């Protein structure tokens, strides 16, 4: 019996788990994928929006600005890289400048600092900005973050603080009585309260608890191009076109690691797991990016990806308590920026009145920072202790054997090649795993004590190697 079960370990579930782990409540997180942060949270723009955009009176307006302001402290505490690079909201004509002025008023009203830049100032601060841009509104506090870095720090700390994490367990049944029983193919669990943070499956899981739950999520797919890190100096800020009804538009984003992201477009989809990139979608991104930046050729791209965003029909977050069953769904943009405030809101509004949790002092778990970010002296000290820190397995991203091993054994653990890639970057560089993937298979096999044919690429059904002996035996 737990006090609380959290369904879903995306960025919302991880924030929730971390926030609750600072109390005396007992918490179980159930995740259907092998790896946490595997869906919406691993395929978005990674921006901490300041909060000028959401409509007044909405949960988005309340929680975005608040969440954004919580990030700096949270990142400092958990040692997660946050790049406050600022953003430019650009205008191509007088009418758009007028719109910018309206946004400026709204931002100032919300106490979000911003400044209007003329064409020259735009060029000076962003040399590769699209030539058609004549002005921009500069938001100095917009920041870039890798959502999974934040998420891993949260869930590692939560686990360290005693939260239980069960992965590879989809919820298939919910029974409600004086306690709530949640069933997966492996087991049944009971809790006083359940928080549904199941992202793309949010409405489906809500209907397990309440069969006639009326809301169906509005799913929007966005496709992206990713450049090599060698292009890092091509862009200084995050560049936004003016927002439309469809969303924030096709952006140019610099990531914490130096890759640039171009995207997303926005297409309504029915299947929440349709994360295919398409010729039309990529063409649209390639075309629309020209509105904010001088484009780069395809040969400079190292990857394309698509992510589905689970929006709500009202275009606002859905955060509601139905008799100890709490839905936190419809969390699309600015969900990442809002996430710390969402977790706090759920705690204050719904959990405190019911379970009266008491705060508990916890030490902070900080995962060792990447060796590539250390001084040579710091690295040498580590290598002296363990020579495996001196064995580089990923050249593109400068990652050592032991860093991969450490990632596997971190508090929330990592079992797949995709998880390793997100945790410590092998496979996310220009060779896209061509040089390092076989080495990562090797390390996973050794550290987990499993044969290579059992090593997972992603989910539990994703082992991909067949030993040659097995082939010949079948003859």
């Amino acid at each position, binding site marked *: 019996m737990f006090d609380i079960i959290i369904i879903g370990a995306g960025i919302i579930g991880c924030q929730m788990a971390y926030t609750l782990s600072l109390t005396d409540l007992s918490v179980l997180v159930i995740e259907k994928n092998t790896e946490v942060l595997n869906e919406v949270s691993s395929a978005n723009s990674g921006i901490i929006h300041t909060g000028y955009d959401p409509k007044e009176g909405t949960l988005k307006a309340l929680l975005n600005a608040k969440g954004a302001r919580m990030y700096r402290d949270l990142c400092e505490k958990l040692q997660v890289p946050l790049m406050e690079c600022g953003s430019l909201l650009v205008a191509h004509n007088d009418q758009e400048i007028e719109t910018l002025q309206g946004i400026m008023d709204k931002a100032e009203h919300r106490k979000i600092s911003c400044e209007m830049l003329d064409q020259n100032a735009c060029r000076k601060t962003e040399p590769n900005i699209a030539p058609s841009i004549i002005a921009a509104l500069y938001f100095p506090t917009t920041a870039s973050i890798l959502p999974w870095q934040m998420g891993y720090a949260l869930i590692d700390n939560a686990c360290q603080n005693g939260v239980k994490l069960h992965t590879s367990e989809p919820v298939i049944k919910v029974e409600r009585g004086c306690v709530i029983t949640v069933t997966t193919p492996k087991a049944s669990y009971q809790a006083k309260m359940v928080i549904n943070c199941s992202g793309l499956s949010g409405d489906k899981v809500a209907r397990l608890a309440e069969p006639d739950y009326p809301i169906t999520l509005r799913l929007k797919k966005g496709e992206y*191009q*990713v450049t090599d890190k*060698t292009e890092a100096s091509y862009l200084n800020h995050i560049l936004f076109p003016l927002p439309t009804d469809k969303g924030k538009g096709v952006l140019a984003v610099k990531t914490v690691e130096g890759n640039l992201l171009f995207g997303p477009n926005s297409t309504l989809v029915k299947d929440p*797991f349709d*994360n*295919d*990139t*398409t*010729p039309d*979608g*990529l063409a649209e991104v390639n075309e629309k990016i020209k509105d904010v930046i001088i484009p780069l050729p*395809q*040969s400079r*791209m*190292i*990857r*394309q*990806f698509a992510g589905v965003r689970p929006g709500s029909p009202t275009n606002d977050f859905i955060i509601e308590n139905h008799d100890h069953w709490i839905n936190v769904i419809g969390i699309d943009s600015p969900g990442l920026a809002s996430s710390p405030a969402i977790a706090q809101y759920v705690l204050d509004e719904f959990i405190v009145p019911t379970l009266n949790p008491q705060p508990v002092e916890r030490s902070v778990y900080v995962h060792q920072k990447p060796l590539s970010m250390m001084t*040579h002296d710091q*690295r*040498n000290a580590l*290598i*002296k202790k363990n*020579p*495996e820190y*001196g*064995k*580089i397995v990923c*050249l*593109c991203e*400068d990652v050592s054997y032991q860093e991969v091993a450490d990632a596997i054994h971190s508090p929330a653990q990592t079992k797949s090649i995709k998880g390793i890639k997100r945790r410590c970057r092998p496979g996310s560089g*220009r*060779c*896209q*795993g*061509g*040089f390092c*993937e*076989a080495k990562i298979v090797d390390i996973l096999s050794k550290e987990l004590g499993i044969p*290579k*044919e059992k090593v997972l*690429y*992603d*989910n539990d*059904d*994703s082992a*991909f*190697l*067949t*030993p*040659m*002996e097995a*082939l*010949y035996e079948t003859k």
Partner: protein
Amino acid sequence: MKQNKVLIIGGGSAGLACAIKLKEQGIDDILLIEKENELGGILKQCIHNGFGLTLYKQEYTGPMYAQLNIDRFMALGIPFLLNATVLDITESKVVTLCDPSGIFEIQANVVVLAMGARERTRGNIGTPGNRCVGVWTAGNAQKYLNMDGYLVGKRIFILGSGDIGLIMARRLTLAKATVVGVAEIMPYSNGLNRNIVQCLLDYDIPLYLSTTITKIKGDGRVEGITLCKVDENRQPMPETSFDIEVDTVLLSVGLIPDNVISEKAMVELDPKTKGPKVNSQLMTTVPGIFACGNVLHIHDLVDHVSMEGMLVADSILTYLNHDTDPKMIPIRAQGALSYVLPQTISSESKTVLLKYRVNKPMKKGILKLISNDQVIMTFPKVDLHPSEMQTLQLSQAILCKMDYNLVVELCDE
């Protein structure tokens, strides 16, 4: 700081050949750096035969060819480091290395870039579709199969008709996988003709020309692909699309010289070859930094890689013994050529080996050597193919006629 006269980055065919030749000519102060845990480079995984015909007049497998060079290298007692990665290199040739003993710096007089190439990826060409498991570069699948003993799939389609893809089509068939076909976006194959015959035709594997993959389908694992004919601008024609069920897609869509380290040393790169710009001594734009093998330009035969390593060794001897600053004459490619190497010719060169590739298949053509708008030599050429590097030896008699504004041009008859 430790000092070395010659630091060679890369223990593959180019680096080994260079080191051996240097040592044989009396240079002792050499250090060769290898990032893997053994010498030999990519040949170790190329277990097929066909290597060595040009240089040794004998046919070896990749591992045999590599071992031949490793044995000579070891017999000469040349110092080397394994599991050592170059983290940084400066224009003044201070090289920062990391290995299991720690991070350290070496000041070198001469640096040889011999890091080889990497494979072009799905991201580089932007193949749309799902990102599930089941898509690899052909070389990566080759490593899993030939080095580790594992197959990555059972029903396989290969995109791109580069040599690695063709070799893998045969290898996978022999390993009891089904290779359903090979698609090439160009109207001609990009592999050596012998590989088309021996790896595809001999095994009845269809080659779809002017065709590309427009969608990779899957949910957790690749389930199929959509193939589509392309027009003369390489744009897919949707009305021609058809689906094939496969569980694996291998990409053999080209190699790219791996010049991340070179760029740190401020070596200037040629956008055509994607390797360093070099003079006829194979010295880059940074004095004392030389390049050879696939890091310089992509080769189709390892023999030429070894020969380039040896040429660099000769050049280093000259560089170390003479403090000359010869006049450099730029040379450029024109007409049906995609590039010519080197990019500049030293006025002091006695002979120069020009290397070039055509940018389209040609049955017949005339290669012209032009200096200052005057055609100084013409060479009739037959059966030219983009997949086959061509060479042209310039003798001193020709070189002394060459003045400035040098052009190599290939035109139709």
